[in-house]
């Protein structure tokens, strides 16, 4: 496999490692509650101290998501958000936001956009990686080739249910990092860290040297700290999206900046 020029994502993990720090990844759904708001939210997430942003592309049938992100998707779609409009908006956002940006999408919108067109446009507007949540390694041959051609990191999900063989295959086709699902189930906040998280990370460590990012169900500094003891970064998604739903209309992006800072400071890791 050809070596890529170092991506913004790889550079971020290099600097975290050098600083002895762990990362915080924040997910938001693009277009929730509007594309204009998303620009402000990304800037707030950066200001709050996040290390990487996952930008969710809204989909009509988000079957891997719990109710919070489902509602965000519905709000974004009701406002007319499409993958094309998100990509068109990124250059404007990039004037303020320098964090690595991972597009987190279901596969059909990417497929209908056209793999080649999507890879080119996503790369040109300044996205750094892509994660297609319902694209299995088995179906991803042409996709991987195309995304790599456009210097986009291809990030795949590993799950507690994945066998070691599958984890090896997923690690082999992932670049930038491997995203591990902390527990079986859909996205959404849980009060405790799943018992399946640690054994999964331990299995993956024996298989790959890729940075490991753990998500699904995290919402408090305590959970994030517990994940960061084991992995390179933790993802907070539904908890952020719920705060956008509850507070954005009254407090604007400042509420999200405050929350991200609380998460970041609560974990005690210094920004890299």
């Amino acid at each position: 496999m050809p070596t890529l020029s170092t991506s913004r994502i790889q550079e971020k993990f290099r600097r975290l490692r050098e600083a002895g720090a762990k990362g915080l990844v924040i997910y938001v759904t693009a277009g929730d509650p509007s594309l204009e708001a998303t620009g402000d939210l990304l800037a707030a997430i950066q200001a709050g101290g996040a290390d990487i942003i996952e930008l969710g592309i809204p989909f009509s049938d988000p079957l891997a998501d719990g109710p919070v992100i489902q509602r965000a998707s519905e709000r974004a779609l009701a406002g007319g958000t499409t993958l094309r409009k998100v990509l068109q908006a990124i250059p404007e956002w990039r004037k303020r936001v320098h964090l690595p940006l991972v597009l987190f999408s279901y596969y059909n919108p990417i497929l209908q956009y056209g793999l080649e067109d999507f890879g080119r446009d996503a790369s040109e507007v300044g996205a750094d990686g892509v994660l297609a949540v319902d694209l299995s390694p088995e179906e991803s041959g042409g996709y991987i080739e195309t995304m790599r051609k456009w210097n986009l990191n291809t990030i795949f999900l590993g799950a507690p249910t994945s066998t070691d063989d599958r984890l090896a295959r997923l690690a082999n086709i992932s670049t930038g990092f491997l995203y591990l699902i902390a527990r079986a189930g859909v996205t959404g906040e849980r009060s405790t860290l799943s018992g399946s998280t640690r054994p999964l990370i331990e299995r993956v460590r024996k298989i790959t040297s890729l940075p490991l990012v753990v998500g699904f169900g995290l919402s408090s500094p305590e959970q994030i700290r517990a994940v960061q003891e084991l992995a390179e970064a933790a993802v907070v998604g539904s908890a952020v999206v719920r705060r956008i739903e509850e507070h954005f209309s009254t407090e604007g992006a400042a509420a999200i900046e405050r929350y991200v800072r609380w998460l970041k400071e609560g974990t005690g890791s210094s920004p890299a």
Partner: protein
Amino acid sequence: MPDGQLTTTGPDVRGRFGEFGGRYVPETLMHPIEELERAYLDAKSDAAFQTEFKRLLRYYAGRPTPLYHAERLTKHLGGAQIYLKREDLLHTGAHKINNCIGQGLLAVRMGKTRLVAETGAGQHGVATATVAALLGLECHVYMGEEDMARQSPNVFRMRLLGTEVVGVASGSKTLKDAINEGMRDWVTNIENTHYLMGSVLGPHPYPMIVRDFQRVIGQEARQQILELAGRLPDCLFACVGGGSNSIGLFFDFIPDAEVKMVGIEAGGRSLNLGEHAARFSGGKPGVLHGTYTYVLQDADGMIARTHSVSAGLDYPAVGPEHAALHQQGRVEYTYAGDQESLEAARLLARTEGIVPALESSHALAEVVKRAPAARKDAIFVVNLSGRGDKDLGIFQSAGIL
């Protein structure tokens, strides 16, 4: 049997029927899907499993179902000889029970104690609830709130059978959203739960498993028509929602080049996007619920809303094997609208004393159009996939009583 042409003998090892099918699911579901595939292939070659499946089909579900020569309907239409494959006479009132018995036995074999399923018209939900009761399994059925309202007798039946019916209020509140919610349940409870997919949809191996459990329809019909008429039929007709009753009828006739096959989708109110479920007339290839197939969607890949008077056909994607049969030209796909299907139901009721399900009425509507122009010795076989008791409220509100 003549040498097959244009056959979909698939799926291949990747779960593909030609270019369609495959496995597009979040990683968490890949292991259970692989486990299911292994368990199914093992069961398929296990004589004891097949014997038990056949025993329940015969003594519990009521197979074989008759192939009935509908002479009054034939005379009324004045053309082709019309034969009805009476799946409506099965226990629970539709072909769905065939697949549910098969998958229920498979779930027990895998050590699962809980079933989840989606349902549109409620026929699959009732069949799943029935099999759960028969096999002593816990059962949750997801059903769109719109469908719960329009098929309420089936909701009560499921509850009586001990199943928890969970209303789905998201999206279009119909079958597609019920599948989303069912899959969310499955991915959260994979240890003890089998997802009992009701049609030839979803990731591999579901389209293969459901087809194999429904093949019995065509196997019986082929033998029966040879006994009754001494030759193979000229044309088969079946409605296509996800496509399980149609693939069940068609599959064993695919190698018979002289047998034409017509699949009838829901034409709804019109062919404007959102007003029908005719995937081969308004859709294009895409990915929904784990499979690559024809999907009704907008230019941005968002799945379209659909409409049909028949809840069981009201779904934006079609089984991948049908997509392959469409591409190969082996099966002709067309559609029937709400109104003509309602009228076809009334016609069958009045000529034969059989009240068909609104799903099956779509197939009848196509027969009503074609039979008069056909030769009088032509043989048409129609899959009467379900009975219409559940649809009485719709017949009433449509003003056709």
